[in-house]
């Protein structure tokens, strides 16, 4: 279908090199108007790099791009925007001190007599937000929102853009739960029906199969396949992405339940959660399902001492007592944050420094830290030029692996994981599952929060559902289905 008319976007032999890394090597791509095109590939394959070149963030090193037949070589994001390219980046670029409305219309503020027209600003922002996240107030300060809401705001920003011809979504659903994904799909379908071409990046193949018509697979910066989604088996896509067939689903190692290592009774935070009680045993994986904003993240943060506990009791092993991250880590409790850009990782610091930060010896020998980092890089398959590379230069999924690697290095007994596979590709996701499994079989306790209910069902022994700040009872995963979890999370009895 793309070959007949002039494609909306046509990319020829696109090249990009960062230092010694060839991120894109002679990549071709063609997308027709009204088409939803899935861009697939493992972590570090070059997907985000491609979208950043199309949207004017980086210049290309070689090759050409055409938008509706006209040469497209933007020198800045603003120029790409004027040409009709809208993008939702994987790592959101937002101004935390501005309001939601100001962020939605940043750079395109409506003015009257040279002054910002605040009434219209709010109205326009509200209209854009209504499509994707009507519950977010345009007047809220952006800094108060969680990552999922921030993602919705950046999506609204892209939608608010007038004259959009090409919309790029770089892992838009990475932190969304099922109902929010549905809402996004409706918007995408409507936009596509008006002739807007859409580039859709995701590691969730079920999603891709539902929303996209065509796909392109990148591997190590090269295009290794393109075609129609219909008639292509997911296993074939995985094979294209990784270069070899994916092994069958792993069997879980047998686990022996141990003593209770972490328990909460009627725990409540300043805002959320309202009430949470659970017991987590050694050698167990307990999942917390729920919608975005239901208080799952706040629960983990309260346990880890990052947020105040206003009521209830929290015991680590038999101990109660004041909580702070320093104390929790000393007790062997570690947290992987869902927000790796703001708090999970220090972008300017190197991979090695990020991996070893929580467990530095009194005297730090850089060579020894590097050796430790190399072992973890190897073990987790982190794609990086070396332990000294600043973390911000890594692809999103590889950054996530660094955040996980820190817990391994710390050798925690209780791991609190908030969206541990966010942005991680299919093959590595299997690796992370295996890793969690390994931890549990070693007698460590794992508490996982995830918006992917299928993921929880696969890795957890028991799952509890959080609804509007209240945590339900933990039920053995074997007795649950995705449908059941969805109903519970939505509060439908």
């Amino acid at each position: 279908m793309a070959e007949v008319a002039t494609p909306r976007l046509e990319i020829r032999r696109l090249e990009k090199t960062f230092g010694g890394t060839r991120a894109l090597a002679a990549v071709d791509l063609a997308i027709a108007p009204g088409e939803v095109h899935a861009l697939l590939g493992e972590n570090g394959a070059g997907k985000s790099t491609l979208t950043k070149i199309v949207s004017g963030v980086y210049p290309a090193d070689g090759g050409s791009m055409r938008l509706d037949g006209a040469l497209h070589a933007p020198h800045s994001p603003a120029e790409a925007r004027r040409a009709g390219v809208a993008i939702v980046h994987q790592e959101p670029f937002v101004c935390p001190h501005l309001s939601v409305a100001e962020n939605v219309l940043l750079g395109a503020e409506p003015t009257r007599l040279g002054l910002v027209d605040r009434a219209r600003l709010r109205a326009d922002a509200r209209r854009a937000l209504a499509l994707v996240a009507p519950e977010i107030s345009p007047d809220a300060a952006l800094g108060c929102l969680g990552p999922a809401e921030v993602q919705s705001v950046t999506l609204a920003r892209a939608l608010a853009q007038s004259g959009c011809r090409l919309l790029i979504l770089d892992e838009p659903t990475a932190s969304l739960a099922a109902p929010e994904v549905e809402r996004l799909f409706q918007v995408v379908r409507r936009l596509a029906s008006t002739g807007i071409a859409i580039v859709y990046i995701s590691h969730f193949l079920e999603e891709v199969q539902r929303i996209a018509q065509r796909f392109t697979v990148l591997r190590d910066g090269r295009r290794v396949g393109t075609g129609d989604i219909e008639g292509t088996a997911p296993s074939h896509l995985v094979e294209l992405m990784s270069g070899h067939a994916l092994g069958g689903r792993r069997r879980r190692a047998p686990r022996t339940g141990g003593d209770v290592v972490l328990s909460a009774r009627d725990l409540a935070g300043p805002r959320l959660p309202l009430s949470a009680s659970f017991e987590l045993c050694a050698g167990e994986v307990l999942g917390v399902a729920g919608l975005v904003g239901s208080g799952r993240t706040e629960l983990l943060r309260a346990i880890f001492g990052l947020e105040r506990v206003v009521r209830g009791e929290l015991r680590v092993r038999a101990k109660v007592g004041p909580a702070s991250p320093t104390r929790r880590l000393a007790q062997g409790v570690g947290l992987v944050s869902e927000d790796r850009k703001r708090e999970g990782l220090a972008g300017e610091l190197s991979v090695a420094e990020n991996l070893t930060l929580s467990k530095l010896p009194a005297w730090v020998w850089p060579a020894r830290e590097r050796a430790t980092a190399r072992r973890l890089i190897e073990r987790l398959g982190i794609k990086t030029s070396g332990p000294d590379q600043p973390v911000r230069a890594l692809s999103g999924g590889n950054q996530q692996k660094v955040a996980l690697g820190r817990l391994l290095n710390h050798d925690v007994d209780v791991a609190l994981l908030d969206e541990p596979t966010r942005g991680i590709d299919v093959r590595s996701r299997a690796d992370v599952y295996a890793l969690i499994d390994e931890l549990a079989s070693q007698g460590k306790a794992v508490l996982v929060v995830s918006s992917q209910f299928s993921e929880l069902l696969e890795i957890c022994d028991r799952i509890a559902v959080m609804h509007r700040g209240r945590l339900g009872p933990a039920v053995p995963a074997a007795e649950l289905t995705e449908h059941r979890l969805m109903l519970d999370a939505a509060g439908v009895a």
Partner: protein
Amino acid sequence: MKQLSRAPWFGPLCAVLAVYALFALLAPQTFTRSANVLTMARQTVIVSLAAIGMTLVMIQGGIDLSVGSTVALTTVIVARTLDGGSGAWTAAAAGVALGACVGALNGLLVTGLRLLPFIVTLGTMSALRGAAKGLANEQKVDADPKGLDSLMALPGGAHGGFLLPTGVWVALALAVVFAAFVAYTRPGRHVVAVGSSLETARLCGVPVGRITLIVYVIAGAMAGLAGVMEFATLTVGDPTDSIGLELEVIAAVVIGGGSLSGGRGSVAGALLGALLLTEIKTGSTHVGLPNWVQEILTGAIILVAMALDRWREQGRGSG
């Protein structure tokens, strides 16, 4: 070689050598004389000591504007202590301890009240200046230095050999100690982590408040020591001394690769930055440039250093 050129002190070192060569050409008879080199080393000591502390503060993501006032207050305290009959050592210790207390005050205000360091130290800058003037009855305080002046004196007289004054050695030794502290100890690495991303540091169990406090106490103590050296040079307690010193100190740190947004900075670089500033001042005087040209020159050097640093940073992403 590539590794070397990436070190943060590499740029400042080149600048120091280049400026030295320039003035050596322009004023060959006077500028390269060993007596002049010694004088420059001595003049750099006070800024250097304060810059070591400021480097730590700026790596941590803060700033300390109270340095100049702390130095002035220390000269007064040292003079008063000597006047009161104490020995040279006691007076010096009192000066350093006073600086540490000032630093602790700054640190507690920053961590306890969660105020911005800029605001806190702007406040203490003014308050300490006032305290110095009050303590000195708004005039200079004369005191017998009781040998304290030898800290900054040239051993063997003004035209003697190439031995450096004790103060220079003290500054160098402390620079080594604190450079190693930042690079090779856990609290030192934690300082970098806090400056790089406070939230991440907290998540990783770094005692953020304690690290912040430590950094300000060190900076205060170093400013106090700078004040002791200042007294050794002046041999008088002067409450109006060192106005604007903090800006010179910040400039030295920034030239040395420090960043106002935290996470970056180099003790060695800051020392070289301080030396560069002295070179320009002394050199300009030797060549006979008026004061206003010196000031423009200093400003230009800071901007050029910044621009070069930006430019070098561009290539760093690929690591």
